[in-house]
């Protein structure tokens, strides 16, 4: 039995069901809408596993599911050396989101990482602590900033409502996912010109550790 992991909630689940439907594979929740048991029609030997999108990378890496649907951001953030554990099968064309670095719009002197680095140096001298960047994407953000060479910053954890941290004075900048930028603008934040950390979209991934022949299912997804 080939196990297919799909996000268990919301728009990502709905879009995934539609995407598979167009390829003649009908995915659905069994029983009531609240139940996390799935059903697969239109192909034999495939079992649907409904999971949180954030857990799908780990399940793929452990080989407990053969294929899984989740964003590029999740795979790169959650899996160290991700390409040793999973391989992308096909990009699905929805769930587009950019992981970006944004600062307050009122920082009219700060439009690039170079500016942010200079601001961080001064900020630490003036305020006695490192400039705080709120995010839940710690690994990706840290790797991006290390690559650039930003100094005198610290990452603070923010698992939700990250756009509000600057106004609440718990951080000076954020690294977060955005699709249209509307929430950023509403919270008076601006993306740095060179602040694109990762472009993400919903993708079907194949586990490199799970045992089993996924070729029949993969052939249908092309």
């Amino acid at each position, binding site marked *: 039995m080939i196990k297919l992991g799909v996000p268990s909630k919301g728009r990502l689940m709905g879009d995934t069901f539609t995407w598979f439907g167009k390829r003649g594979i009908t995915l659905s929740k069994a029983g009531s809408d609240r139940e996390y048991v799935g059903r697969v029609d239109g192909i034999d030997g495939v079992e649907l596993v409904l999971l949180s999108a954030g857990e799908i990378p780990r399940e793929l890496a452990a080989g407990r599911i053969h294929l899984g649907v989740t964003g590029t951001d999740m795979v790169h953030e959650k899996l160290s050396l991700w390409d040793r554990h999973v391989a992308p099968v096909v990009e699905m064309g929805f769930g587009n989101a950019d992981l970006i670095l944004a600062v*307050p719009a009122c920082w*009219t*002197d700060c439009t690039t990482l170079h500016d942010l680095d200079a601001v961080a140096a001064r900020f630490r001298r003036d305020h006695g602590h*490192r400039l705080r960047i709120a995010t839940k994407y710690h690994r990706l953000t840290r790797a991006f900033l290390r690559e650039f060479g930003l100094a005198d910053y610290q990452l603070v954890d923010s698992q939700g409502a990250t756009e509000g941290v600057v106004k609440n*004075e718990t951080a*000076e900048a954020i690294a977060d996912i955005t699709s249209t930028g509307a929430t950023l603008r509403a919270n008076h934040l601006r993306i740095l010109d060179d602040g694109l950390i990762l472009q993400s979209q919903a993708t079907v991934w194949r586990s490199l550790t799970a045992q089993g022949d996924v070729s029949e299912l993969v052939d249908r997804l092309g």
Partner: protein
Amino acid sequence: MSQAEADRLLAIFLDSGAQRVEADILQPADTLLDLYGEDIRGRAYVTHDPLRGEMMLRPDFTVPVVQRHMAERAEPAQYTYAGPVFRAQEDDTGRPTEYMQVGFEVFDRAAPAGVEARVFALFHSILTPLGCTASLGDIGLVLAAIDGLSTTDARKAALKRHVWRPHRFADLLGRFSQPLKLPSKPLGGPHIGVRSGRDVAARHAMLEEEAKLPPLAAGEVEVFDRLLAINGAVPDALDELGLIANDFPALGAAVGKLSDRVAAIEAAGVDIARLKFAAAFGLTSMEYYDGFVFGFAQPNGDTVASGGRYDALTRVLGQGQDAPAVGGVIRPELTAALVAALAGDAA
């Protein structure tokens, strides 16, 4: 095997007059994060204590040993230690995450060249019989070249801040080598956050001043390329440095210090013609080392030992106080294998 080797190395350092010190495995994360920045999270194991907050498994002994010294400040002092250190490996799973370090640290206000030569000669006497080759470097040369630039203190400070990040350093040097254009101001917004409107206005004023500065002279920028390209036997490197210092006299004092150190190392009985010198040595891996640096590599190229002068670290940890600090560490797991291979060859 590695414990016996650690004990052997420890005994050598004790014989040289060092006092044995211990350090907690769990270190407060704050101190390490303030020193090394967020990057240390990728290299160290972070754990959480409900009362003491974030803690790290010690990534090295340097910080606790310096803290201990700064608290007592009896100089001259010599310390030795041995024990495991812990390094998380985010990208390369082939490297060990836990390994032994045996270290030797000297805090001594005597003439720097003599202290540096004594520490280096001791490591040399332990490691060259095992087939290791030594490389020297000197981060003081780059720092002196920055000080010698005909530019503002603000630009010098910006360059010094990134000496240990060569890629960013090169980027800054490139920016300062061209006429600056004032970037167009983006649309603002209502004031939010801790950084005040006055802070923003102050930086705008500073950027306007900076835009009036002339670019760095091409001849001065070229000094960094010539300097960082130096990589060869110590006597040749000294000759080349002498030529650069002729063109750029601000380097003279730093080159003089290096010559004194090399003379002291030679006087300690080391054949300097067999030592390598690279001006870029240690720039990526030895943050806060601000003068003499050295490393020893085994035949396959792996680093077995490294060390140098780190006065800058004592300045940051000492909150205004500093101490002249020179030291190094050896990895006994690696030297144990070299000792065993030699014994095998002899048998």
